[in-house]
């Protein structure tokens, strides 16, 4: 085959492969951001329902209709929170460990605000402070989700995580494990730095002697 034609064909194939990979990455990135939007909408929806629920008390003289409506709200809030938990598992796969910890903390706080206190009790007063607190927790959570997703949803990080997934080593998930990992890493980096220094010094001595 003509070498010029060969070059053109190779360039075309490589270009097509790069465009295909870029398109795959773009789909993945857009799909991930769609899940982020879905999670944020869901959080605000739970907050609305929660605020509505907590602004009405469940007193013994409450009407049957209102009582039934509150029961329905309880089921809806708990159902939506379960949905949010599944979304959390999908989203956090691209978060850093630090962001993941913070995400869990904020989800716990949001859940405490929504279903804590006397949630699902047969008798309780309206709690406007809690209704306000739900919005604060929701705002913190949505801000963190968007922030962490922006930080974690990068091509090089995803490639890095894919490579990490194939290694026979699993990163520790406990705090003690992470500290131990950090200490080992520092130890090996120290060894590497010392070794590199010694090699460079030996090489420069050898060059000096040779020249």
């Amino acid at each position, binding site marked *: 085959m003509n070498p010029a034609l060969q070059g053109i064909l190779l360039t075309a194939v490589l270009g097509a492969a790069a465009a295909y990979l870029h398109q795959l990455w773009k789909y993945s990135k857009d799909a991930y951001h769609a899940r982020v939007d879905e999670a944020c909408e869901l959080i605000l929806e739970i907050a609305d329902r929660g605020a509505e629920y907590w602004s009405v008390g469940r007193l013994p003289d409450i009407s049957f209709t209102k009582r039934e409506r509150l029961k329905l709200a309880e089921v809806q809030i*708990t159902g939506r*929170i*379960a949905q949010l*938990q*599944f979304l*959390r*598992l999908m989203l*956090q796969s691209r978060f850093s460990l630090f962001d993941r910890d913070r995400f*869990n*903390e904020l*989800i*716990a706080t949001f*859940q*405490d605000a*929504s*279903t*804590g*206190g*006397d*949630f*699902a*009790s*047969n008798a309780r007063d309206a709690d406007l402070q809690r209704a306000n607190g739900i919005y604060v927790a929701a705002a913190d959570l949505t801000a963190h989700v968007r922030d962490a997703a922006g930080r974690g949803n990068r091509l090089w990080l995803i490639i890095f995580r894919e490579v990490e997934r194939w290694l026979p080593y699993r990163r520790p998930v406990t705090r003690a494990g992470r500290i131990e990992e950090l200490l080992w890493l520092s130890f090996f980096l120290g060894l590497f730095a010392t070794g590199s220094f010694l090699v460079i010094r030996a090489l420069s001595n050898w060059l000096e002697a040779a020249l």
Partner: protein
Amino acid sequence: MEQDNMSTTIDIARDFTRTPGGRYISDGPFSGELFRDRLLVPALRKARQNGQPVVVILDGTRGYLSSFLEEAFGGLVRECGFTRQELNRLLEVKAIDEFYAPYKLLAKRYISDARERAIAI
């Protein structure tokens, strides 16, 4: 409830229910109060005597209401006379599946935030 030489394990889904309820017994079946009084407190009292910790596994349920967790774990300090230091030593809350990680955080938070009930003389 499972007991070996080292610890007592309470698996909520296996030993109590897969569908935990609300806070008080009066709120319906499988409440936090019922779990605490029926399973957790007896196991912890035994742990106080023999020094073997109690491990509570949160996995396997359909999820928890915060009110359930607050009554079950915060209630240990508030209602049952356990101190936070004692619970740090005797109680371990485990969430093996990542799905239950926020519930574990909440349980720990409720223990550390709970205040012993003031005794009026």
